[in-house]
């Protein structure tokens, strides 16, 4: 028994040893497996896991940079940034969105409708994209949030910057910023990379035009966070880059003054430097508060803006289209003289109306002006005289001159809301209306009625180019080095001093590369003189609005543009314009340049449904021009200061 036991023991140990060998081989395979895995994780794929580890560790908080500041000519801030308190939530870091909203609802008084909207938005975006609960918290709300912060997981109170507008009078020209829409992302490629919460983009005006430069680049804060999303420490901070600042040609004080003159009226005032093309004032009334758009305008305010019959959202200076009325007589005269159609000595008897092909064409003065020459016709704005001029000139030649002086084209670059208007001619009518041109329409066009449509800024530019002696200028709002060169004024002065030296003239001309809009400058000068008469001589249409101080004397032309054709019945009943319903009353227009003896500025004033040009537009223009010329020395002295900047 012992023996068998021993031999049994031996065979047992042999068996155990053999099986152990098998087990050891299996172990070796397992070791190789583990080793292989270690190599794969820690050597081959190490980079990938390092990235993942960093992704775990770091949370980036992007924030919007301060937008570029817009200043007026004198360096006063028009649009800048202010500190705001915001509340962001990252849905990913929040355990239970519903309970968080419940808490926030109590702290911030959020409406159920608003929470519903937020939930919809959360569903539409990535869980790690922050959602803004409020982008403009009051200080007390902000401090209350901070008090409860420890129990509000995923909530981020943020001190940010938001656009703020100081000046309502500039609301149209500056425009406004608002939340980035899908449309913005499609149009503005640079915005696609700027997905920081609270980013804004310019929607209209300069805000839109300069958006890509003013937007800056977004900054970020990088935090190390633990597994529960709690911030451990700030790792890095990139403050981003603030957007570019811009200085404009605008005069804030004059702008404000102009708006005051347009109080309770719908209309616009444009003032331009006739040499540099600097837009000094461009006001459209009524104005709106652009600050309301920054954080999203509420429905009530929006409805009010949309339903206002004076259309406060429209920038009437560049979007408003008006028949130029009698103001076009300047160009009709220039065109006729330049084309040798008439001579300045032309005389016409105005009996109050003329007849053409059985149609009656009325002069604004029922009794007629009697015998008038060209200068008197401009001065007294005789329609009958200009019917005859237009008849001889033809609409196509007028259209060429009009386009030369900037009508029918955009005055500014990059203003999406700017309209081009209509400079009618035979081709245009065929193309857009599909009918042949009638001679009668030429007569209407000759006094700026009919199809003719212009913006106030176009009229201002036209006036400026008449006032500077007939040279093309490029209007601008933004001051920068690029358009600081080429001083037309310098050229014209040199030209005046050496007007007898033909050679020098030529040399200057080629040096400055100014495009002249005339064949014979005497024709331009003739019109300037006639406009002087219209304002400063008795019987002139704007005689009552003249300035008598010698250095303030200006020259201008009134215009009255019909909104609706006056019927024969109305003529018979002698219905006065004021008696018509508001929306049927004539627009009141006035263009002028000043000072007459050393022209520097041009102005256009349009008062919607304001009646005749002499009645509403001219008196306003007079006040603006007076203020403008009073401020002239200041502007000139400031120019020298700013050159160093």
């Amino acid at each position, binding site marked *: 028994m012992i023996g*068998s*036991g021993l031999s*049994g*023991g031996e*065979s*047992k*140990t042999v*068996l*155990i*040893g053999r*099986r*152990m060998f098998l*087990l*050891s081989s299996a*172990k070796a395979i*397992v*070791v190789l*497996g*583990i*080793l292989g*895995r*270690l*190599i794969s*994780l*820690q*050597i081959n*794929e*190490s980079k*990938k*896991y*390092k990235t*993942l*580890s960093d992704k*775990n*560790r770091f949370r980036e908080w992007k924030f919007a940079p301060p937008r570029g500041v817009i200043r007026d000519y004198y360096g006063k801030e028009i649009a800048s940034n202010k500190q705001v308190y915001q509340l962001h939530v990252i849905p990913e870091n929040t355990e239970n969105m519903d309970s968080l909203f419940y808490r926030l609802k109590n702290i911030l008084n959020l409406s159920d409708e608003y929470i519903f909207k937020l939930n919809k938005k959360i569903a539409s975006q990535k869980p790690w994209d922050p959602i803004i609960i409020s982008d403009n918290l009051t200080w007390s709300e902000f401090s209350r949030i901070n008090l409860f912060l420890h129990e509000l997981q995923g909530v981020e109170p943020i001190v940010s910057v938001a656009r703020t507008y100081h000046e309502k009078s500039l609301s149209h020209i500056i425009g406004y910023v608002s939340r980035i829409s899908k449309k913005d992302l499609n149009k503005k490629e640079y915005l696609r990379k700027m997905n920081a919460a609270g980013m804004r983009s310019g929607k209209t005006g300069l805000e839109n035009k300069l958006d890509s430069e003013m937007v800056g680049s977004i900054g970020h804060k990088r935090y*190390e*966070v*633990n*597994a*529960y999303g709690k911030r*451990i420490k700030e790792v890095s901070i990139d403050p981003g880059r603030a957007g570019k600042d811009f200085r404009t040609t605008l005069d804030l004080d004059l702008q404000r003054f102009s708006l005051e003159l347009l109080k309770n009226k719908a209309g616009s005032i444009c003032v331009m430097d006739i040499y540099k093309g600097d837009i000094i004032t461009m006001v459209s009334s009524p104005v709106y508060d652009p600050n309301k758009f920054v954080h999203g305008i509420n429905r009530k305010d929006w409805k009010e803006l949309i339903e206002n019959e004076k259309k406060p959202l429209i920038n009437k200076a560049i979007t408003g289209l008006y028949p130029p009325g009698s103001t076009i007589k300047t160009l009709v005269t220039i065109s006729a003289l330049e084309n040798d159609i008439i001579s300045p000595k032309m005389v016409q008897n105005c009996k109050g109306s003329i007849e053409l092909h059985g149609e009656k064409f009325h002069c604004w003065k029922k009794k007629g002006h009697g015998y008038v020459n060209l200068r008197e016709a401009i001065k007294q704005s005789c329609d009958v005289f200009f019917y005859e001029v237009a008849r001889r000139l033809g609409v196509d030649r007028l259209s060429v001159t009009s386009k030369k002086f900037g009508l029918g084209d955009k005055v500014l670059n990059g203003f999406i809301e700017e309209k081009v208007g209509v400079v009618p001619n035979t081709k245009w009518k065929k193309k857009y209306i599909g009918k042949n041109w009638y001679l009668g329409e030429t007569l209407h066009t000759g006094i700026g009625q009919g199809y003719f449509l212009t913006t106030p800024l176009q009229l201002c530019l036209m006036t400026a180019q008449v006032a500077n002696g007939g040279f093309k200028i490029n209007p601008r709002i933004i001051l920068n080095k690029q358009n600081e060169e080429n001083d037309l004024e310098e050229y014209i002065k040199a030209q005046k001093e050496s007007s007898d030296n033909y050679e020098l003239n030529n040399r200057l001309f080629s040096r400055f590369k100014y495009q002249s809009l005339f064949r014979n400058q005497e024709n331009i000068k003739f019109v300037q003189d006639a406009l002087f008469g219209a304002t400063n001589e008795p019987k002139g249409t704007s005689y009552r609005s003249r300035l008598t101080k010698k250095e303030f004397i200006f020259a201008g032309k009134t215009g009255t543009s019909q909104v609706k054709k006056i019927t024969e019945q109305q003529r018979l009943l002698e219905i006065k314009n004021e008696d018509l319903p508001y929306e049927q009353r004539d627009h009141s227009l006035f263009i002028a340049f000043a000072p007459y003896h050393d022209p520097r500025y041009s102005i256009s004033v349009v008062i919607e449904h304001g009646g005749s040009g002499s009645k509403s537009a001219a008196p306003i223009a007079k006040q603006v021009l007076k203020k403008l010329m009073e401020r002239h020395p200041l502007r000139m002295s400031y120019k020298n200061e700013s050159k160093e900047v």
Partner: protein
Amino acid sequence: MYKFGSITSNISLREKIFSLDLHIVLGVFLLGVISCFAMYSTDGGTFAYHTKSHIVRFFVFFLLFFFVAFTRIGFWYNSSVLIYLLFFLLLILVKYFGLTSSGSKRWLNLYFLNLQPSELMKIGLILFLAKYYHKISPGDVNRIRFLIQPVIALLVPVILVITQPDLGTAFLIAAGGITVVWLAGVKMKFFAYLGILFLSVTPIAISFLKPYQKSRILTFLDPSRDPLGSGYQITQSKIAIGSGGLFGKGFLNGSQSYLDYLPEKHTDFIFTLFSEEFGFFGSVLILAIYILITWRAIKIGNMTRSSFGKLYCFSFATAFFIYVAVNMGMVLGLIPIVGAPLPIMSYGGSSMMAIMLGLGILMSCKIHKDEQLG
């Protein structure tokens, strides 16, 4: 014939010390020291509770190791059944007086230590089965009659542990037991039967699984299924190990662990933490030490004369290796998260106690390799 183990060891303490296997002693010591540093790192670089407690345990149980090793093997042979029954009794006690933590009843409160008898059972079962197969003759091994006792000895504690529930430990206990049975020479066909039985019982067993256990298995099959739930542990562990790279992020610089991305970093995921901080070289060092210990254990088995000794040494070496492989496989994302500590490295007294006890008996086999056993 040798019923009464009255033979006192005639080996002097000096001789005993000299016949210790230095590889194993040094390996264990090195792991102990490394684990203390790792524990220091899990405490966020402070000498806090886990570190202190781990150091104390390591030295206490390291002493236990020597004490066990110097006790003659005959004593351990004779008392194997008693030890098994004691551990079994403790498992029963857990059932009634155990502490519940995270939904599982595993611990007995012994005031100075929360004892986890299932850990001890890992060793107890090997001891019991090694003695059983030492006693029966080779011819009887494959008789059904002689299979009944080991199967019961294996299944009852395993089922007890499963119902705690603690799938991981149950699996490790079973792995040790099955190793002994297999080494003893039980024919492959019985294992095949067992396998078929297992497969047919599995669907029924799954229906009894707790939802979290089911989700662990499913998550292992597709970790991206639930990246913030059960898959979270696997994903984060892989990120930690992978991001460690070749040289690691440096001691106390394991961002995954100090920012709490690593779950159970001081217990089951201690290897991950170490791997993140010391990289591929660190991981290989740890793996090498475990291989060294396993290899020496097998060597001791080869030296031992008695089949009890051989069975015990080989089985322990295999079980020890399985513990390591399961833990590493788990944190490396090779197998599901089952909750298996890494021997010596992981924080936990019972596991440390069991491993030191097991290693001690192994060492006793070496010191007393020539001792005749009943």
